[in-house]
Structures are given as structure tokens and as C-alpha cells.
């Protein structure tokens, strides 16, 4: 495997998305509403962690990249770093992200190079993540009055982070902007089927200039990173 053929920024962007979301989902362990969901979220987190590890290894040392970079060096979209919130918030984040990641990997799989091989492998995993998010969106949206309110609130509150998914990524052989229409179509269908309303607010935050792909992150990310990195930084070079 040669590192020269892999576009570094593109690999890091995809890896950071996967790692950060994996960490967020891992935070549910010990806290999920039911045991089956705890296992499901942990399994999804594990898939994402596996993707991140492959991607990091293509461009450098995975531990250094995950544990020793500062916040500004991370290229993940702001959506994935948003706190878990209630279960509906986590599901809304999963819905927006897995629909995007499925489309992205689907396109990437038919390009050339190392990223394509990873995408071809991972696209099947993401299909299960997407299915999981869709089924829960339907169940919560078309569920009890309480779950319905919460699901709508979650969609509304995360909508402003959805536009960033389609920002260009340097070196990526796929144009994310070209996925937007299909993403919107999929998400709209699910939201309507869940008897909910597609958010009508802006899909960008007012302070999003540059945003995650340029290393600009939201406040909760710093705290997440501190927790994720502190063990490695406290014991440099330690191993099992």
C-alpha cells in the first residue's frame, strides 16, 4: 500500500467523521434506553471505528492521528461532534449522517484507488446503519405524542448542520455537492413517512464559515476530544 496515492485531506476528513461519530455513539454504552439499542449503537460505533482505522492507516499512524492532534486539525463535519442529547437527537444525527455516508461511499466505491476499496467494503455496513436510523425515525415520529415532539425537535435542531455535509473536500474524487439532491429526497421521504415535517430553517449555522472541513468546530467538540485523548496523552507510549 503506498501512501502517495491516497489524498491525505480527503482520507482524514472521512476518517475524522467516522472516528468522532464512533466516539459519540460509544458514549451511549451503559446509558441506552434498552439493551438491544445499547448493542446496536455500539455495533454501529465499531463499524465506524473500523473505517476510521483503515483510513488513518492509509495516511499515517492511527494513534497519533486520533489522539495527538489538536481540535483545529480535525476535519470532521460539525454534525458528528454534536452531543448525543436524547435518543431522538442521536437518531436524527444518525439519519442525516448515514444517508450522506451511504451516498458518498456508494459513489466513492466506483472510483479508483485505496479509498474506493474502503468505500466498497463500508457501504454495506452503512446500509445497516441507515436502516436502523430510518426505522427509529418512523417509530418515534409516528409513535407517542412525546416521542413525536422529541423527534421533530431533534430534526429541527440538527438541520442547521446538514448543509455542511455537502461542502467540497480537497482531493476527494467525489463532489459532495452532487449528492445533495438525492440526500434531500431520501431524508424528506423518511421524515414525511414518519408523519413529521421537513425543517424549513437554514441548513447552515450562522457561524459556520469554513466549518468542520476547515477545522472550525463547535464548543462541545473540545470537551469530547479532551475525554477521548486524555488517557493516551497521560500515558504516552503505553501499551497493553
Amino acid at each position: 500500500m503506498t501512501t502517495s496515492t491516497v489524498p491525505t485531506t480527503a482520507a482524514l476528513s472521512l476518517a475524522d467523521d467516522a472516528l468522532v461519530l464512533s466516539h459519540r455513539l460509544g458514549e451511549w454504552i451503559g446509558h441506552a434506553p434498552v439493551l438491544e439499542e445499547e448493542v446496536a449503537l455500539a455495533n454501529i460505533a465499531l463499524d465506524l471505528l473500523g473505517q476510521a482505522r483503515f483510513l488513518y492507516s492509509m495516511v499515517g499512524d492511527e494513534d497519533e492521528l486520533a489522539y495527538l492532534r489538536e481540535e483545529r486539525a480535525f476535519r470532521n463535519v460539525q454534525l458528528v461532534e454534536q452531543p448525543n442529547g436524547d435518543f431522538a437527537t442521536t437518531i436524527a444525527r444518525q439519519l442525516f449522517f448515514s444517508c450522506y455516508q451511504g451516498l458518498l461511499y456508494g459513489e466513492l466505491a466506483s472510483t479508483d484507488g485505496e479509498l474506493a476499496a474502503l468505500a466498497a467494503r463500508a457501504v454495506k455496513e452503512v446500509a445497516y446503519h441507515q436502516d436502523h436510523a430510518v426505522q427509529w425515525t418512523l417509530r418515534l415520529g409516528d409513535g407517542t405524542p412525546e416521542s413525536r415532539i422529541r423527534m421533530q425537535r431533534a430534526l429541527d435542531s440538527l438541520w442547521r448542520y446538514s448543509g455542511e455535509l455537502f461542502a467540497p473536500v480537497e482531493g476527494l474524487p467525489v463532489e459532495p455537492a452532487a449528492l445533495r439532491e438525492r440526500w434531500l429526497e431520501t431524508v424528506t421521504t423518511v421524515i414525511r413517512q414518519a408523519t413529521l415535517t421537513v425543517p424549513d430553517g437554514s441548513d447552515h449555522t450562522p457561524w459556520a464559515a469554513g466549518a468542520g472541513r476547515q477545522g472550525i468546530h463547535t464548543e462541545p467538540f473540545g470537551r469530547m476530544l479532551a475525554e477521548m485523548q486524555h488517557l493516551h496523552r497521560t500515558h504516552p507510549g503505553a501499551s497493553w
Partner: protein
Amino acid sequence: MVTTVLEEELRRIAGSVPDPELPVLTLDELGVLRGVRVTGPGRVEVELTPTYTGCPAVEAMAADITERLREQGMAEVSVRTVLSPPWSSDAISAEGRRKLAEFGIAPPRPTSAGGPVPLTLSVRCPHCGSLDTTLLSRFSSTACKALRRCEACGEPFDHFKEF
């Protein structure tokens, strides 16, 4: 590529290593062993493909293969993880499927090549053989399995997902 007698023998040995998470299956039956190449005296390179990118068993598989091949006098064993072409549950052999069912895990149904996962055929209960089974969770004890329940005998069981 020409395969030598030694390579065939080493492949057979590497392939007979049990899967660390599903010890009823060998790596060969699981279909994750991609190639064994002798690159010099006492040097061998093994290619392994992960079932899922995050499969934590890969490291244990690599360690087990290394140990078994060292016992065969191969001083330098390197195990490489390859992604392409991606592993599919179709790669599980007929014998592997039979063993899974015997172990209480419903084997994966055939996937249509490249197409969406077919969900029309029901999954048979590995305990009583009934087709009246219900999905409880898409994710079970490992990422590659789903959790189902048999409505006939009442037993929950794992189903190796189509992938």
C-alpha cells in the same frame, strides 16, 4: 500465479485456524483467507480480509495464523489485511453454513450480487426449524449478527446477516 506444494500446505494450515468469535468455523469456511505466498526461505505472507471493517477478531486471527505457521518452521510470518474485493456472507462455505446452524446461529441467506439485501425470504430457526421468526434487533452480539426470536419454539437466536 503458481502455487507451490508448500504454499498449499501452509494455506491448509492457516485455513484450519478457528474463527476466534465463532470457533465452530474455520477461517477457510468463513472465507476470509485470501492468499498465502512464500516470499523466501522461512518467509510467508498471508492475506486476510475482514468481514466488517471494525471486526475486532482480525487481530486475533492474525496472531493465531502467525503462531500456527511458525510451528511449521516459518520464521517470518506477515499477515496483511486486504479490503478488495470486499468480503461477502456468500463467501461462507456450505460446510460453514451447516456448522453455524448446528451451533444455533441461523446462516446468512444468499445475497444478490451487488444488489440490495433481499429480505423477502424468512430466516429459519436453527433450533426447531420453523420459518415463523421475528427480528428483534438488527445488531446482536457482534456486528455481523442480528437478533431474532422464533415464534414457534420461543427461543431467541442469532442470525448471521447477509452482507
